[in-house]
Structure formats: C-alpha cells, structure tokens
C-alpha cells in the first residue's frame, strides 16, 4: 500500500536543491522582502554617490520616515489581521479621525490624556465590534457594511465637533511617550516595532492566529473542526477598530492637533499596504512582516519621490502600479501554490 503514491510525488523532492533566491521567494513575504532590500540598496547607493542632491540618509529624512510609518503601520496591522480572517474594514480611516477628535476634545475639556487615550481605543474597539455584529448578524459583505461605516463616522466627526481643527495639548509625559525620542529613535517608531513583534507572535505563534488563518482560509473547515469563526471575526473587527484608534493617538501626539478631514483615503492605503505585503483579498494568506514591509515600501517610495521633487501625481501612479503588480503576483502564487 505504501508505495502506491510515491512515484507521483517524486518531482517535489527536488525542492531541496532550490537556489537561495527561490527559497526566499517561497517564504511568506519573501518577494516583497527582496523588492524592499533592492530598493534600499539603490537608495543608499544613490545617497552615498550624490549626498548633496539625494538626501536619503540625512538625519532629517530618516526622522521624517520614522515619524510617517507608525500611523499607516497601525492601521495596516489592524486591517491586515481582519483581511486574513476574511473580512474588510473600510471605516478605519474615519474611525481613526473620530477617535482622535474624541480624545482631543476630552483632553481639551480637562481630562488626563492617560484616560482620554484609552477611551479613544475603547471607542475604536466598540465601532469595530458594531461593524462585525452587523456583518455577521445579517450575513452581509463587510465591504458594504464598513463602506457605510466610513461615511457614517466621517459624518459623525462633523456632527460631534464641526469642521474645525482641535488642538491636542496633553501632559508632557504623554507627549514624550508617544512623540518623543529614545536613543535618537522616534517613540512612535518604537511603538510600531513593538506592535509588529506583538502581532507577529499573536498571529503566527498563538492559537488565536491559527484560528484567524483557518477562518479566512476555509470557514467551513474551521467551523467543522469546532472553531467559533464568528467570534474570531468579531475579535478581528475589534482589533481593526482598536488599531485605528491607536493610529489616531500616534498621529495626534505627533502633530499636536486633529484635522476633521485627515483620515480620508488612509483605509485604502492600509489595504494597499496589506496587498503589497502579500495578503490575499480572499483571506487566509499573509504575514505580519509582509504587512509591515508593505507599509515601509509605500513610505519609502513616497519619500524617494519627494526627495527627487517629483510632482505629487507620480506618487499616486507609482503606488497604484505597485498595488496592481503585487495583486497579480499574489494571484499567481495562489494559483500555483508556490511550493
């Protein structure tokens, strides 16, 4: 009985002699890692060759990069976990603004930022849970439900506080905790690194993560084996909402104010970062490292184009091309099941 299937599988054993390149490509987020490293090498080489014209390695530029990454990073981590669980959240950009305004007005009214910030996160989590509840209760596509959420919470920002900017003036300890520097590294950047590490362990090393992948990969199978897929999705929705609020805290602490229109389009950038990082739109595939590399890649390209003084529309066109290429690449991997 044993040898019956052995012949058919002989070609697979060749995989051990794959080149290093192929091995990296085969790893989760391997391809995006290669693109990222290549881009970095080119940028660093360019900066060393033309230090006056291309200030990629200047301390100012590195600081700008470190400050820019965490906000999109938080949004993308939350959106990414939810995408792996098989759902979308388009409302995170609006939730990000709403919770930031909520926090800023509470601080303005005299509440400590150390209380206002957790309240903002709670609001984000509750909005995420509401999205999840509506989606699952009525069996709707989360794309539609959260599209509603996007518009609703954008409107709610104006209802709650009007179209005016809110100053954010927390106690100095709070500011230094979220926008100060530690050993020359921006605090927000340290936060995002902590989140990436934490999410990596949660998703790839924890039972919950396994259930997220199972739920997004094959809901029927996950349910058949006894996983409560509704609960997994609810938690993922809550994470997406909570991370949007945390992104709001980091952005607000950095700038010192909240603009009512600031979150528009961020949800799409977050999903773009996830797609570039190798997440499948159908769920069940992806990695935290991939999401983070996707965010880094978007910001590196943005930064390079700014340094080259390219007009803004190039930026959109570049990111757009990157998204579509990444989607094509992911689709090919899914189809072939790249061993």
């Amino acid at each position: 009985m044993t040898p019956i299937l052995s012949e058919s599988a002989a070609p697979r054993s060749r995989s051990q002699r794959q080149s290093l390149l192929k091995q990296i490509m085969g790893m989760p987020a391997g391809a995006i890692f290669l693109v990222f490293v290549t881009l970095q090498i080119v940028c660093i080489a360019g900066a060393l060759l033309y230090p006056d014209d291309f200030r990629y390695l200047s301390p100012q530029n590195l600081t700008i990069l470190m400050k820019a990454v965490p906000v999109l990073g938080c949004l993308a981590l939350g959106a990414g976990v939810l995408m792996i669980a098989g759902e979308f959240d388009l409302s995170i950009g609006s939730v990000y603004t709403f919770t930031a305004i909520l926090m800023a007005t509470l601080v303005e009214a005299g509440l400590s930022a150390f209380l206002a910030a957790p309240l903002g996160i709670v609001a984000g989590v509750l909005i995420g849970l509401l999205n999840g509840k509506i989606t699952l209760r009525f069996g709707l596509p989360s794309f539609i439900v959260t599209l509603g959420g996007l518009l609703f919470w954008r409107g709610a920002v104006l209802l709650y506080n009007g179209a005016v900017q809110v100053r954010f003036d927390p106690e100095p300890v709070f500011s230094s905790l979220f926008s100060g520097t530690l050993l020359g590294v921006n605090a927000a950047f340290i936060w995002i690194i902590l989140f990436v590490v934490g999410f990596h362990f949660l998703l790839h090393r924890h039972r919950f993560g396994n259930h997220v992948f199972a739920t997004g990969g094959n809901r029927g199978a996950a349910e058949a084996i006894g996983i409560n897929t509704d609960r997994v999705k609810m938690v993922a929705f809550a994470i997406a909402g909570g991370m949007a609020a945390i992104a709001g805290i980091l952005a607000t602490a950095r700038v010192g104010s909240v603009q009512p229109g600031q979150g528009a389009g961020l949800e799409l950038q977050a999903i773009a970062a996830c797609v570039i990082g190798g997440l499948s739109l159908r769920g069940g595939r992806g990695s935290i490292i991939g999401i983070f590399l996707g965010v880094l890649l978007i910001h590196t390209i943005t930064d390079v184009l700014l340094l080259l003084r390219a007009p803004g529309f190039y930026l959109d066109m570049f990111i757009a091309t990157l998204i579509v290429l990444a989607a094509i690449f992911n689709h090919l991997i899914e189809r072939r099941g790249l061993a």
Partner: protein
Amino acid sequence: MSNLLELHNISKSFGALTALRNLSFHIGEGEVVGLLGDNGAGKSTTVNLISGIHKPTEGYLSVDGKRTMFSCRSDSADAGIETIYQHTALVDSLSITRNIFMGRELTDRFGFLRQAEMREIAMEVLQNAVHISGIDSPDTLVGNLSGGQKQAVAIARAVYFKKRVLLLDEPTSALSVRETEALLNQVLKLKAENVSSVLVTHNIYHAYQVCDRFVIMSHGTKVFDVQKADTTINQLTEYVVLT
C-alpha cells in the same frame, strides 16, 4: 458485539420537507459500513445528523448503548466520531501540521503554540499511522497536495485524535484510481485497529471492495440492510436504482 452507534427511528423534517423517515441502523465496533443510495436519498442529512450538525425531529441516537443527543459538532467529536467531508475538511493556506492540530492546538499556558512538538507528532502520524507517500514535510501547505493526499491528512487527523468512527462523505468522488485504492486500503488498515468507518457514497463498486455491510437508503428511509456475504453487486445496484 456491542454496537458503537445506533440510530433509532429517526425522522428529520425541514419545514414541510421530510428528509428522513423512521430511519434505524447501527454501526458496530471495527465495522465498515457502506451507506448507499441515489442522490436525494437522505445520505447527507444522515451524515449531518450523526456529526451533530442537525438534530433529529423524532427518534434518538445511542453511543455504546447509551441514549444520547448531539447538539453540535463537538458533541459528536467527543463521542469519537469524525466526519471527513470531501471539500471542507482542510484549509489550503495552512501547513499539514497546522491542519492536523486546527482547533485542537497544543499550546502553553498563555495559548502560544508548541510548534516543535506539533510538528514532530505530525511527522510521526504521517509516516506511521497513515502511509501517505510523497509528502516530504509536515510544513507543506495543504493546497499543494493532491486530492488523495488531502484526504489522507484528514484521516491522519482523525487517527491521531483517536476517533472510533470515520464518516467518509463521498470519499472517492474526486480521487484518481490509484488514490482511491490507497484510501480504501487505509480504511481496511484502520478496521484492523478497530476503527469503524462509514462510507457514504453512490459508487457501489468502491463500497463493495471494503465494506462488511451495506445500508441502502431511498426517499429518506432504509430499504435494505445486508451483510456482504449475503449479497452481490448486482443485487445492491438493483436496490439503489429501483427503490
């Protein structure tokens, strides 16, 4: 011989539609039963009922002679029944190890996975309990396996978790001839280890190769229940087609 699982006068209606009528049969210990019938005979409803997805409208189940009621999947799993569906059993985007331990992960106190341990067990199960050749590593994604290999992984999962009855729902419909042969051999091997199997199929020839007994259903009820020694393929075919 005590009966592992018995169905007693089970009826199941979905609104006005009666899917099962007064169905009774049993599965013995270490017995391979073929549950046969044409499309719409009620086989799938029976499978869902035994695996705890549906509750009977009337009648009851008993396990080891004790009357019982499955109200969800995990009830039947606790009773040692594992249903292996053709398409929904595994997650393609996860590795073999993760599929085997899906929903029953080995973790530390904080819920973190004991990966090395799970991998080792998966390797052993793949090599010893079920012989699936052609899989070099338990880290292989299930999406890269053939239909037969996938089913073998699902069976490996059942074997590792010491199930007593395997419910195989149309197990051979997507398999190559060679894979079918391997699967049927696997059923016989498990029988030698006292694991019962129920082959739910309309392929009478495959069932005839390995089953000890045949239960034929038609229009939601049992029309024939016969030991292999007392029947022929022709007679079984007649019952499936003509009733």
